């Protein structure tokens, strides 16, 4: 069949070596055609602007353009590394991200499994819908809501404390509490999103596995641990790798929580300042694209190395689960 196709394309030529590249494309031509729009799109919209990454090494002047602006080597990176806060913000960023990753994905998986157990269709759907709602809100709104709870005089929590005779707490001046408030806020907002992904994954697990397990006398918990969790591993690994790539971006890119929730209270910075908020505050006034580009590049490179390493490790364990 394939030979016929090849021969009809190259009627007049005999025994020309077809590069394997073309062979492959032709063999799976429909599929490659299907992939083409997406691929072209990625190349144009994501890769073309990447050329702009060189701005990180320039003192960018828009009227001279990218090719005309002065090259300044690594000087745009200086301000971050010279700052006295660089360790604090880097540590905050990474530690929070690890906590988010573990608790976020872990809880989401647990919740997805539990929802799957609920036989009542209505309730299951209800819970899934409600869990997702916080995801739809923005951090600006969340800030107001948190404020209504934590405000010193009018806040609901302090009012409750006072009712019980306990001293009200100055929430916005005590960094300690925020190390717990931040993960809680992240989970509240994102667990629904991941749980929905996991729930969709669970639906694609063939019920035969569960039938067989039940017949062997496995309890629900054992079924969950031995069947559901391993079957969800591929998607989990993908999600973990994706998050790993953004490890240096606070909250994997959703850094609004670190900026909005603490209401810019300087006293809380030791617990709430992360790379993105620091850079944003520092560069807000300056509109310096070279510097902001530099920091973005720095965050990306670290994440990229991490992804390369993890991906390579994962390939050893299960080739298919790896990102590439």
């Amino acid at each position, binding site marked *: 069949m394939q030979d016929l196709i090849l021969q009809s394309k190259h009627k007049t030529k005999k025994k020309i070596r077809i590069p394997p590249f073309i062979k492959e494309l032709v*063999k799976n031509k*429909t*599929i*490659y055609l*299907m*992939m083409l729009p*997406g*691929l072209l*799109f*990625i190349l*144009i*919209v*994501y890769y*073309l*602007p990447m*050329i*702009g990454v060189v*701005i990180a090494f320039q003192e*960018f002047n828009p009227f001279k353009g990218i090719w005309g602006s002065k090259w300044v080597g690594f000087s745009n990176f200086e301000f971050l590394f010279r700052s006295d806060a660089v360790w604090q913000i880097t540590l905050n960023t990474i530690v929070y991200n690890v906590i988010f990753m573990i608790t976020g994905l872990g809880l989401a998986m647990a*919740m997805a499994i*539990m929802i799957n*157990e*609920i036989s009542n269709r209505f309730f299951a759907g209800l*819970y899934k*819908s*409600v*869990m*997702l*709602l916080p995801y*739809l*809100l*923005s951090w600006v*709104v969340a800030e*107001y*809501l948190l404020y*209504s709870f934590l405000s010193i005089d*009018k806040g*609901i929590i302090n009012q409750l404390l006072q009712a019980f005779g306990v001293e009200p707490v100055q929430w916005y001046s005590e960094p300690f509490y925020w190390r717990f408030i931040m993960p809680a806020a992240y989970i*509240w907002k994102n667990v629904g999103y991941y749980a929905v*992904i996991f*729930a*969709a994954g669970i*639906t*694609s697990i063939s019920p035969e596995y569960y039938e067989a397990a039940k017949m062997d006398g496995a309890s*629900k918990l054992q079924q969950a641990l031995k069947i559901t969790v391993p079957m969800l591993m*591929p998607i989990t690994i993908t999600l973990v790798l*994706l998050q790993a*790539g*953004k490890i240096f971006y606070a909250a994997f890119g959703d850094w609004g929580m670190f900026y909005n929730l603490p209401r810019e209270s300087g006293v809380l910075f030791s617990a709430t300042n992360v790379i993105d908020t620091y850079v944003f505050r520092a560069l807000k006034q300056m509109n310096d*694209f070279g510097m*902001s*580009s530099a920091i*973005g*590049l720095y965050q*990306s490179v670290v*994440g*990229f190395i991490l*992804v390369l390493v993890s991906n390579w490790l994962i390939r050893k364990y299960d080739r298919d689960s790896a*990102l*590439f």
Partner: protein
Amino acid sequence: MNQGNISRAVIHTGFLVYSILCLLPLFVVLTISLSDEQSIFQSGYHLIPEKFSLDAYAFIFSGNSPIIQAYGVTIIVTLLGTLLHLVISSMLAYGLSRNEVKYKNIISFIVVFCLLFNGGLVPWYMLFSKYLHLKDTLLVLIVPYLVSSVNVLIMRNFFRTIPDSIVESARIDGSGEFNTFLRLVVPLSTPVLATIGLFVAVFYWNDWFTASLLIEDGKLYPLQFLLQSIMNNIAYLQANALTQKLATSLPDETARMATCVLAVAPIALTYPFLQKYFVKGLTLGAVKA
């Protein structure tokens, strides 16, 4: 038996509590939006409006802002964008999930790499305004987000869980690749397509950033962007000594919350009705001949 009942009770209670935690803030937002402005200042936030008032909504829907138009724009953009996104991304993801595709690893790398690096705001802006000439068009609200690497990877994973045997037997029956995809794989993948579709729809619905840079024609303002600008306007009027007088009668906190309600409500209300698409596709079982 007892164990089952207890565990079920525990699960339900747990979820009920969590649901309250999720719903309560939204409820508070709704309440504030329906309250009289002064009562908020005097007595803070409450669960039930102290003094009921529709002022905030009246203000937003009133005369000078093109809000009805904005709803229209956003609905079109969301529907079109989500549909196109699903089509293009799923085709790409499907290709990457088939083992016989030799270059899938290289292409996967290309898909992932661009997640990690980007050239920044200005080159992105230049691409769309200068080179593609899409500024001030409806398309520019849709096009930049037609493919998302994250979504492609998630979909790829799901397509992989479809047993090869099903695809093989379809091939043997003479079905072309695209036909297999369309008539077989897609119906089996409704959960993941619905999920991704939901996320994409939420994204388009909430997007205001694109408009802030690339839309200058008032007739093309999407909803979120308009709401944001209304809020910024209030803030500006208050801050400027010359216009403060005009700002006294304007709802502020309540308007902010009303903005939020108007933004979230349509999605929060339609999502439950789409639940049926999230149900298992595999139980429908049938491999169509």
